[in-house]
């Protein structure tokens, strides 16, 4: 997967799903649109849960993640 897709695919999906959820309940009429709105607006919350579950944490940390296998820490220092 390209670097851009790896980094931005999920943020873009989540942003689109959030906007859809916000508009769906406002413009759509009926239970279907409400259900779609609740489902799509829940996606960011479910994503947070998924990312913070122990199994995922164990996969990725505390080891360094990066193509070179080394983390320079330069990004952190900029903060």
């Amino acid at each position: 997967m390209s670097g851009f897709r790896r980094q931005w695919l999920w943020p873009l999906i989540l942003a689109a799903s959030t906007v859809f959820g916000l508009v769906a309940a406002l413009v759509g009429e009926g239970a279907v649109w409400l259900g779609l709105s609740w489902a799509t607006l829940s996606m960011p919350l479910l994503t947070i849960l998924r990312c913070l579950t122990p199994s995922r944490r164990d996969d990725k940390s505390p080891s360094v993640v990066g193509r070179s296998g080394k983390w320079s820490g330069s990004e952190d220092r900029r903060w």
Partner: protein
Amino acid sequence: MTPRTVRVWSWIHRWSSLVCTVFALLLCLTGLPLIFKDELGPDLGLENAAGGAATASLESMISRAQAARPGQVVPYLFFDRDQPIVKVPTSPSMTSDPASFHYQVFDIRTGRQIDVPQPNEGFMYVMLRLHLDLFAGVKGTLFLGLMGVLLVVAIGSGVALYGPFTRRFDFGVVRRGSGRHRTWLDLHNLLGIVTLAWFGVVSFTGVINTLAAPIELAWQANQLVEMSSQAKPVENEDRRASIDDVLREVRAAVPGMNVMTVAFPGTPFATPSHVAVFLTGSTPLTSRILKPALVDASSGAVVAVRDMPWYATALFTSQPLHFGDYGGLPLKIIWALLDVVTIVVLISGLYLWWGKRRRRSGVAASEVSEHGR
């Protein structure tokens, strides 16, 4: 992105966030109970009336409200979108500050008066005023609007920084065990990017909401004057048509719409000789967009009905997107959870800035002590 560009975005993000974070935290915390204002509000104890139609006389309700508050006037009638009730405020004059209104609530089907606490006192009122204007009126609202603009800048610059800060990681990685700072930085990045669209929309619509007062003024100065100019001169200024007759005329002229607010002559939303009636549609979106009808106060004849201008429509559309009160209780719960996530984003940003500041001052102190030896 070059290192210099990253430094510029970092500077923008740091300072736009720092200036508005305390106010953003206040807005998030006070907004949390306001999401559930209907659920936390008083129990109206409405009985199931047969048919459910509004049959009781509004004129009689106004008389009773005035009798209970001698010497006061009724400037407005506020109908409820969801409940068959009308709030009848009384005040010393038609132009009194709404904060001084005394409300009496009636069941519009039976005319029964409902005993409820005043909406302009208690915990929820304090939360509302802190959220709305910091108890400082229009100036407070506009100040919070400015803080909202800074928040939007902070969100935008945060997105610009997300790229360079996370380019070596898979999406959603939170490093643990390699320092508290890195964990909080990753958490800040994750929660910030995941709630980006929601927080961006809520912040932007919040800014639009702070412009309500200027938008009202613009409507009064332009549209209201134009609408009243369409009327014939009033023949008998002392005569007042019954409000029940006025609403009957309006409902006949604009069928299929619901009356939300009535502004009586002399209030800022009507003219000295006209009643302004504000109507809404029935869909989730149109139920938020007001349509004014101007009625001759003496004859009860409808003078003009027109759509609100685009800037007022933008304000009305932005309100549900800010409050999250248009999709039932599940949407409110999701709204509240996203609000809590936003609070964590704000606190983690503050923590990261404070941690860096402490580290820098620690390095400077050790350098000074080494030079001193």
